[in-house]
């Protein structure tokens, strides 16, 4: 379909199943109206939870506590290793402990606005409501949040928020929250309510008569392919930021679980909504395997600049003040270096593309602390950022106290994901998605410290209620036996795929293709997108994909730990996802949040939304490998937040 054209004939408008009523009472009232499963009946239900990050561990633990029989799966060697562990900055909650004017409504409002008015109001409000319970829960589990001298919890303002609502545990908030959820999970493993399957990778989702009835996994050590059945399947498998190859995500993050669900009929929503974080350490060479995030807080004291002259290769110290361009301060006098993530990222790209990039590969901008050090002293800056400066020095070998840091944007988070309704159920009955794997709460841009909140809200406080409403209707139904033809066919499919990789016998490694794919995606579906770029991606991606399928070399066998084999399937799914990202970006003829179409900007170069035509979610339906997906929509209405244009001048 041509961009901007009317929806295709078979495209439908999706029902989010948000109940009617005033938003502030919606969730409370809905909890009362949902069906319950009687405590003694819960053990009659089996639930599969895939993923043990914040969302999956909290969901599996809570479902186990309630009495459901849970099977939890992770491809990691331990649930504690999930990517959630790497989150640094903190977690938002509307506790209003600092008494600075925060409230559930304000967190709701900020999240809808921060998402550039592309999220579902009812979900966001619920998220803000339960945010307070998360902090209570985590504290009771022993999460050592930062405290003040009175022994009470400390808060800070994060990512430009006007209130201090971010709870944190040094620079390791994700680690501590995940260890809390992991300990709750292990308690249920000990209690026998959760059966844990480590080093098991989901490779297919199985449906019977249109309903999810189980999954197929591959044991990464023995290679054994096994069917598992259940009354419901929950995917908590994280985001797809590694489609760019280089990202701040952990090496193993991938889209395979969500994508295999998509191929079985689950709609994939807003794939083009990706977040590029402005402050990461630039790549140092072609062998770079991943990028490291430098906390956003550095922008509070660091000044961002590039040499005024293009191609200036002098070291920072040799460039006089008059020949430096502090471009954010120049263009955004009000917000300066503290403009939102997407604006900071895009501006860095603009100056680097124009030849002002710094560093050996000319691929960064300076983040300079000289003024702050002179003003506050070396020790004050060390107290604020010492850990980060050490980390920077460890990676680059350069001392940020004496020469400016070099930073550049990198892929960080993905707002898109499996489409879910108010119950967090996909359009496939019995199949749920929680955490970063779903598309739900962040619209076109996620605010800092809100992903941890969403993952834990979904897992501890939302899914455990909503899943009961659906399961209650299945009482007495047995699970589909794993010798049913739907399972045997799925197992055979996975085994075929495995042997196909091993027999391709091409010449290049899986990583080689992943890196090449990442380049195309970064260049064309990254910080700024154009129709021309997206169209070229739509021809380059399938061409490289063909090459990948014919020329990839995966050595070894299927019955041992074989990391190339694992990666082959994941990269294959990234290829398909990348193509859909390009189509989604092409058809969304507007700019919003992380999706910036150069054709759609204000006179000042800011993102220009088109609320009349694009105030909707795009959710794509798989039509088989040879037919393009169908774009369905969910209309978004804003009854509680007034739409406005963001401005940071």
């Amino acid at each position, binding site marked *: 379909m041509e961009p901007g054209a009317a929806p295709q004939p078979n495209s439908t408008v999706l029902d989010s199943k948000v109940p009617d009523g005033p938003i502030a009472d919606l969730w409370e009232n809905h909890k009362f109206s949902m069906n319950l499963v009687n405590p003694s009946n819960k053990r009659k239900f089996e639930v599969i939870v895939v993923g043990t990050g914040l969302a999956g561990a909290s969901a599996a633990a*809570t479902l186990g*506590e309630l009495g459901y029989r849970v099977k939890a799966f992770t491809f*990691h*060697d*331990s649930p*504690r*290793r*999930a990517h959630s*562990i*790497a989150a640094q900055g903190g977690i938002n909650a509307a*506790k209003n*402990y600092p008494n600075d004017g925060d409230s559930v409504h304000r967190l709701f409002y900020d999240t809808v606005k921060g998402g550039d008015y592309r999220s579902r109001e009812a979900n966001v409000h619920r998220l803000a409501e339960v945010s307070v*319970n998360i*902090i*209570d*829960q985590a*504290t*009771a*589990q*022993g999460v*050592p949040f*930062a*405290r*003040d001298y009175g*022994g*009470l919890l400390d808060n800070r303002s994060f990512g430009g928020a006007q209130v201090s609502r971010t709870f944190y545990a040094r620079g*390791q908030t994700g*680690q501590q929250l995940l*260890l809390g959820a*992991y*300990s*709750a999970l*292990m*308690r249920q493993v*000990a209690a026998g309510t959760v059966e844990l399957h480590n080093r098991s990778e989901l490779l297919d989702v199985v449906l019977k008569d249109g309903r999810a009835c189980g999954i197929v996994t591959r044991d990464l050590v023995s290679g054994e392919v096994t069917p598992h059945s259940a009354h419901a399947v929950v995917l908590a498998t994280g985001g797809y930021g590694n489609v760019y190859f280089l990202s701040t995500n*952990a*090496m193993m993050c991938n889209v395979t679980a969500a994508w295999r669900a998509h191929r079985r009929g689950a709609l994939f929503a807003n794939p083009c909504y990706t977040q590029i974080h402005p402050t990461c350490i630039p790549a*140092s*060479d072609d*062998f*770079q*395997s991943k990028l*490291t995030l430098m906390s956003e807080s550095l922008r509070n004291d660091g000044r961002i600049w590039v040499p005024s002259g293009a191609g200036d290769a002098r070291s920072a110290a040799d460039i006089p003040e008059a020949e430096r361009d502090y471009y954010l301060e120049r263009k955004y006098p009000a917000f300066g270096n503290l403009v939102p993530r997407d604006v900071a990222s895009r501006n860095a790209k603009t100056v680097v593309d124009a030849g002002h990039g710094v560093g*050996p590969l000319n691929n960064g901008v300076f983040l300079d602390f000289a003024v702050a050090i002179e003003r506050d002293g070396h020790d004050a800056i060390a107290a604020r950022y010492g850990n980060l400066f050490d980390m920077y020095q*460890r*990676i*680059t*070998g350069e001392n940020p106290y004496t020469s400016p840091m070099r930073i550049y944007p990198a892929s960080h988070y993905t707002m898109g994901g499996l489409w879910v309704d108010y119950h967090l159920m996909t359009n496939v009955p019995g199949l749920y998605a929680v955490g970063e794997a779903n598309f739900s709460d962040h619209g076109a841009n996620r605010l800092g410290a809100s992903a941890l909140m969403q993952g834990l809200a979904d897992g*501890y*406080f939302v899914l*455990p209620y909503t899943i009961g409403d659906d399961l209650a209707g299945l009482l007495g139904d047995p699970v589909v036996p794993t010798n049913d033809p739907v399972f045997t066919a799925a197992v055979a499919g996975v085994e075929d795929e495995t042997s196909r990789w091993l027999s391709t016998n091409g010449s290049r*490694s899986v*990583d*080689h293709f992943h890196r090449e794919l990442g380049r195309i995606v970064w260049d064309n579906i990254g910080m700024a997108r154009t129709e021309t770029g997206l169209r070229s991606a739509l021809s380059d991606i399938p061409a490289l994909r063909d090459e990948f399928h014919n020329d990839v*070399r995966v*050595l070894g066998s299927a019955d*041992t*730990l074989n*990391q*190339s084999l694992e990666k082959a399937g994941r990269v294959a799914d990234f290829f398909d996802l990348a193509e859909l990202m390009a189509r989604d970006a092409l058809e969304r003829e507007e700019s919003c949040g992380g999706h910036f179409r150069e054709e759609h900007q204000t006179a000042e170069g800011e993102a220009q939304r088109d609320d009349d035509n694009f105030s909707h979610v795009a959710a794509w339906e798989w039509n088989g490998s040879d037919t393009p997906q169908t774009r369905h929509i969910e209309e978004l209405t804003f009854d509680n937040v007034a739409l406005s244009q963001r401005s940071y001048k």
Partner: protein
Amino acid sequence: MSDIISVTVKVWRQDGPDSSGGFETHPQQISTDASFLEMLDLLNEQLNDRGEEPIVFESDCREGICGTCGVMINGRAHGPQKATATCQLHMREFADGDEIVIEPFRAAGFPVIRDLAVDRSPLDHIIESGGYISVGSGAAPDANLTPVPRDAAEQAFDAAACIGCGACVAACPNSAAQLFTSAKVGHMALLPQGQPERWSRTESMVEVMESYFGSCTNHGECHEACPKEISLDFIAYLNRDYVKAKVKNRALSGQR
């Protein structure tokens, strides 16, 4: 600034838990800007190009926080740099001409799965036996109901910073897991929320630990290898609590 150095990599290859293993030697030219694991990535790329199976090694975050990585480098768990996980080590720590011997973490409790990958699941079993505070979702009181002295919270954090990498076990001449276990026991024993289960937790975690790992004889190698510099004081604290737990648990169950 980056330089290219030549090193000789002697790396352990082993097909499976029951196969016998051996060293393979590969000369490598590498930029000092590369991380240690990127050096192995490149080596794997070359092996794959030559039709040889890549070396299995594990990593995920590559930021020193997930605990997935970990190998012995020249006989030291996580290699030469202090307070640094394998993934954070960079080639600028090595000199031109160096020989780098890479082996899996070796410990009775950590069987080799393949090449440099080992099975550290006993650490999960220790947590499963009591490394938690029993509070169901939704049952928690307001977080500020119980103030926690800042120092206690900070010390609890020092212990909770453990990444579960197992380097302490690999570095220990007895393959003991005291540092890991004491970190979790200490984290919870320092907080008011951890008190109700303090004694039962300590006793059961120690018992499960002893069923997998050797005994601690206070060498202190664990602390030297630990990427998070978990203090040996936590081991002393664990030992003290364990003795107390033995008495208290008996008293509590009325067998005095």
